């Protein structure tokens, strides 16, 4: 039995995702075959290359890296928006962490997605049905997670939307007319609706005004403190990660270049790439 500080909520092992046919040269997995994450011979893009990490219970794990480094692809694979090319992932809340969630039945995958995970998409258009009210958007996830009681669902949706500060008189509006910050908050309410043990956050604050960013970050911090949900927090903004993450993983070209305590990554980065990233922030 692992001690309470050492229980992983999610464990990812040897995750690969490539787009393209692969050729004998690049399928050896050798570094020299690629230009960044791309094989010039066959045009295959390697979005993730042999990625492994653990997300501990109650922890916020930051994932940083430049555009195209593979951050969103991790979340896409974990939320079944995309099929991984190889690798395994284990959720402690699913079959005692014994089963690889990538290789279970389609029905089991639906259960994992609907009851054990929540996700906030980088692009709100993907996370929300813009033509339906905010209440319906949250209820959709509740229905998926097995709730059938209309009045209870509505009450829960109202409660969650209130929690993320959507004023009651706007809850029946379609999010298409909301500001970016409000859309993100509706996404967060939706992602939280099934009380997921693991929350996947993809650039929750990107593209928002600074003051709105701060409010969304406050919300994430508050959720973390009150509910103790484990979060995988993807961001290209080191400031966001500094504020929220206990540990941080730095990605480049589909690989982890450096991982460590967040303050250590920021104050004493080891790799040339991480040093550049950190110094460009300061």
């Amino acid at each position, binding site marked *: 039995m692992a001690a309470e*500080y050492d229980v992983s909520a999610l464990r990812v092992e040897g995750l690969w995702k490539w787009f393209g046919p692969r050729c004998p040269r690049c399928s050896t997995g050798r570094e020299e075959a690629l230009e960044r994450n791309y094989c010039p011979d066959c045009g295959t893009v390697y979005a993730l290359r042999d990625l492994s990490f653990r997300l501990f219970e109650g922890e916020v794990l930051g994932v940083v890296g430049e555009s195209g480094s593979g951050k969103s692809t991790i979340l896409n694979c974990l939320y079944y928006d995309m099929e991984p090319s190889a690798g395994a992932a284990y959720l402690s809340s699913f079959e005692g962490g014994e089963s690889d969630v990538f290789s279970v039945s389609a029905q089991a995958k639906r259960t994992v997605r609907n009851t054990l995970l929540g996700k906030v998409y980088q692009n709100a258009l993907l996370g929300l049905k813009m033509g339906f009210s905010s209440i319906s958007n949250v209820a959709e996830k509740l229905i998926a997670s097995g709730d059938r009681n209309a009045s209870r669902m509505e009450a829960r949706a109202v409660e969650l939307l209130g929690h993320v500060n959507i004023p009651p008189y706007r809850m029946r509006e379609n999010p298409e007319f909301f500001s970016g910050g409000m859309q993100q908050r509706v996404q967060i309410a939706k992602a939280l609706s099934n009380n997921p043990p693991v929350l996947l956050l993809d650039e929750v604050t990107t593209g928002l005004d600074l003051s709105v960013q*701060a409010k969304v970050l406050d919300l994430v911090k508050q959720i973390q403190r009150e509910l103790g949900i484990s979060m995988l927090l993807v961001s290209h903004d080191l400031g966001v990660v500094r504020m929220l993450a206990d*540990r941080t993983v730095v990605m480049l070209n589909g690989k982890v270049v450096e991982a460590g305590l967040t303050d*250590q990554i920021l104050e004493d980065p080891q*790799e*040339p790439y991480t*040093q*550049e990233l950190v110094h460009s922030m300061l």
Partner: protein
Amino acid sequence: MDAMLAIEGLGKTFSVHQLGKRIKACEGIDLAVAAGEFIGITGRSGSGKSTILKLIYRSYLPQKGRAWYRSERFGPIDLFQTSERQILYLRRREIGYVSQFLNLVPRTTARDSIEQAALEVGMGSERAREEAERMLRHFELDEELWDSYASTFSGGEKLRLNVARAMVKHPRLLLLDEPTASLDERSKGKVRELIGKLKAEGTTMLGIFHDLRFMEGLCDREYGMGLGRFVSDALPVAGAPP
């Protein structure tokens, strides 16, 4: 092992890749702190004092040497080999650190930031609230500021808040990096008073002080950084007979 903390052969050299430079911050440091002892580190600027504390706290990646620490939860461990998860646990529950620079949680009120620190060590919410108020009062922060964001505070107010956050936990081991620098005499006195209180409670302390005279009577031994050894034992207790 009698010591609460024993540093052996500690060394750190930074590599700054873009500049192709290597900076040796410290080397061959041996130093032991007994349980309940308060050791002061002195030395000129750039001599590597802060680097030692940051290595112990693991804000810097350890490179050379060992840092034996007698943990309440884990027993004797080498902080340089301990897992990140254990370090995070120790930071919450056992080891406090007051930075030379102001690093307060953004967008958190003074009251909340102290309260959260207290909650981390497992204090009940009522008690945490009381302790937070006691700290705010002790450091004479204006009541108007209690519920304001710390980011709007003056340098000295922030520093006092920093110290309060670390001290409200009554840590087993407290690392202090110039906690009184840039404070006025009155606030310095307040910090000193709390250090005295923690010492009486048995907290082990390792602190960097520009001017150790101010800690007279509290600090047990002085470690001179440039010299790489202890330069004085048992600083005279103020007012004690010669």
